[in-house]
């Protein structure tokens, strides 16, 4: 995994975090900042993605640029970069039948698969998306 100092023009700055043993990332330019308070419009990201909410870890709140929304995610949260060569578009099957709302792309770094989310495409309220298939994956 490359560090932030190794950022080049061929790398994408991202905010990394994990939900239920899955690696996720958001573009850093879409994130305005991070705080310890949820604010009036805060909601756990797992709720918006239809995943079980982790309650036993410290939670950070990401402020999304251009929006009043704050997304709650569990520690650890890291500012990192992904090489452009590791980015992969969604396969046609996933584009036709997305497992997660706001899933924009994937990144394959060695044996690790990271899911890239578009925070602007997240639903406003609790989603009824059935992610049982995602929960069954290791």
């Amino acid at each position, binding site marked *: 995994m490359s560090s*932030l*100092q190794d*950022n080049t023009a061929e790398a994408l*700055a991202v905010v990394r975090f994990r939900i239920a043993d899955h690696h996720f990332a958001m573009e*850093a*330019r879409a*994130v305005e900042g991070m705080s310890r308070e949820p604010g009036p419009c805060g909601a756990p990201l797992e709720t918006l993605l239809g995943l079980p909410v982790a309650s036993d870890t410290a939670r950070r709140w990401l402020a999304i640029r251009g929006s009043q929304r704050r997304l709650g995610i569990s520690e650890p949260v890291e*500012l990192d970069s992904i090489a452009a060569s590791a980015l992969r578009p969604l396969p046609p099957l996933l584009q036709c039948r997305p497992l997660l709302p706001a899933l924009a792309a994937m990144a394959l770094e060695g044996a690790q698969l990271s899911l890239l989310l578009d925070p602007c495409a997240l639903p406003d309220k609790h989603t009824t998306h059935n992610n049982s298939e995602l929960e069954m994956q290791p």
Partner: protein
Amino acid sequence: MKQLLATMRIRTRLWLGFGLLIAIVLIQSISVLWNLDTVRDRVDGVVNHVQPTVLDAMALDKYLDAANRSLGFFLLSQEEHHRADYLDSLEQIDALLARMQASSMAREDDTVADALQALEGSIATFAAMQQRMLPLAENQTANQPGLAYAAEHLNPLTEQMAHQLSQMIFAERSERSSAERRELLLLMGEMRHAWSSITTSLRAYLAFRNDDFIADLNSHHTLLERHLASMSEQQQLLNLEQEDALTQFHAAYQDFFAYLPGLYEIHSGDRWRTDAWLIRTELGENLEVIRGELDGLLLHLREAIDTQSGEMLSQAEATRMIVIVMMLMALVMALGQAHITAQSLIGRINSLIGSVKQVAKGNLVAEIEIEGEDELADLAHAATEMRNHLNDLVARLSHHAHTVNGAAKQISEAVAGQAATSSQMSSSVAEITSTMEELSASSTQIADHSKSVVDISNTTFENAKRGADAMQQVKSQMEGIQLDNQGSLNDILELGSKSKEISKVMEIINAVADQTKLIAFNAALEAASAGESGKRFGVVAAEIRRLADSVTDSTSEIESKIGHIQDAISRLVINSEKGANGITAGMEATDHTAARLEDLVDAASQTSSASQQISLSTQQQKTASNQVVIALREIVTASSNTAQSINRISDISHEMSELSSELDALLHRFHFK
């Protein structure tokens, strides 16, 4: 800088940092409010001065259209409500013009005032047209010159020719009917029909201005010419009245068609309707002038709005730059203050931890040195006081342990001697008893030995009293040990509370480090968003976050060490409590021994009294030998009890000696002055 920070309290440093941030935010807020006031004034100028004039100008243009439209409808239909609409629109135009002239824009802007003055003249011309237009709608003859020409030249001829034709037909009634006369009457009917068609075509032309009606009129004219030719061929059949009427008809007919070209010229020209001509020329030009003046006024007002908008945009951009610069200043100051505070605290805390570790290892001589006058300095001073107090306490404890050890040894020796004496006394009493039993008959020997018995009993009594005094000394020493042990326990508990205060300080440092990590993350995020220009700043932010992680790891290690110290303190408390329980047991045993020694003193006193009584009652021994033997047996029993008690005292004194040795060994773990 570090020395200056060390002289400040940690709370003062934190409040100073927050005060600087609040001051920056306050300056930023005042600048933004000042700019917002300026923007509000400009918006007020646009909304309350320029915009009403623009709306009035647009409304004026709308009412001009409405007036023009209503006038056109009224001229076409002559309906009264169109006339009312036209006049109402003129009133609205006058009212709007008056309001615009009274507005602040007209007073403050010379260009607007000049435009409104020009507009007032043009609108006055527009309104004056009503004096010429409205009468035209009520008088079509005056409005259409063709109708006036026809009324003057053609209509009298038309009536005359119709009358001549009727007269010719009416004159046929006096003639006798015949086939020729019927043909002639039919021809006159045809002429009347042709003439009627000519007048109908002329009216249609006047009404609709269509050249097809002129063609119809010419065809009927040709037909009538043919009828007139036929009538001339049959002129011998006409009576005088008919012949005269035909002659007059023919003359009028010639005049009628002589006037027709003039009618065609008037009615087919541009001025066939006066109102339409006025609308196309004077009124249209007047409207063009008014619209041009209105467009000029609106263009000037739009330029004024554009100027105000541009200034407002410049003001907003300046406000944005102020906010960005102030935010960056606040961020840099917050990071710098956090970094300086963390650096100044970590080194001094590590120094303090090293000193406390030395104390925890038992080195009560090591100095605890820390500079400054803040809370850490207070903590170092408190730790130094605690170390000094522990040092004094352990020194005193060691001294008392040595004293107790020596006293215990003396007690053991004394008890050993007492045991020997007691044993000797027991054997002596046994011998006395046997002697008394054997020599009961010999009162003389009893009298001799009774003195020895008195001496021995007196000696026993004195030894027993010394043993009791020694036990009282042991008891007082044990009470001193108990008080010292309780003092040590209190000092250890105070050490535990101080270590908990250190834990609270560690929690504050952890909170500051967590906040620093959050700020460093956001700073790195901003640097990443800034692209290439924020790359170096991102490196600094990442380094700050790494340092905050290092602080968190260090505080975790410190907390672990403090936890070990607290565990050691807990074990020390337990050991001290066990020692206190042992001391309490020792004191109880000492009390019990003292009581037994008191019993021994009493017994010795009784022995002495008895021996004296024996001595004094030597003469009575013979008679009371049996009672003496019984008494001596009781003495033997008491001696046996005394021997057992002394053995127990010996055991207790051994235990005391072992305890004092253990206490001495424990105290050797400490290094003290």
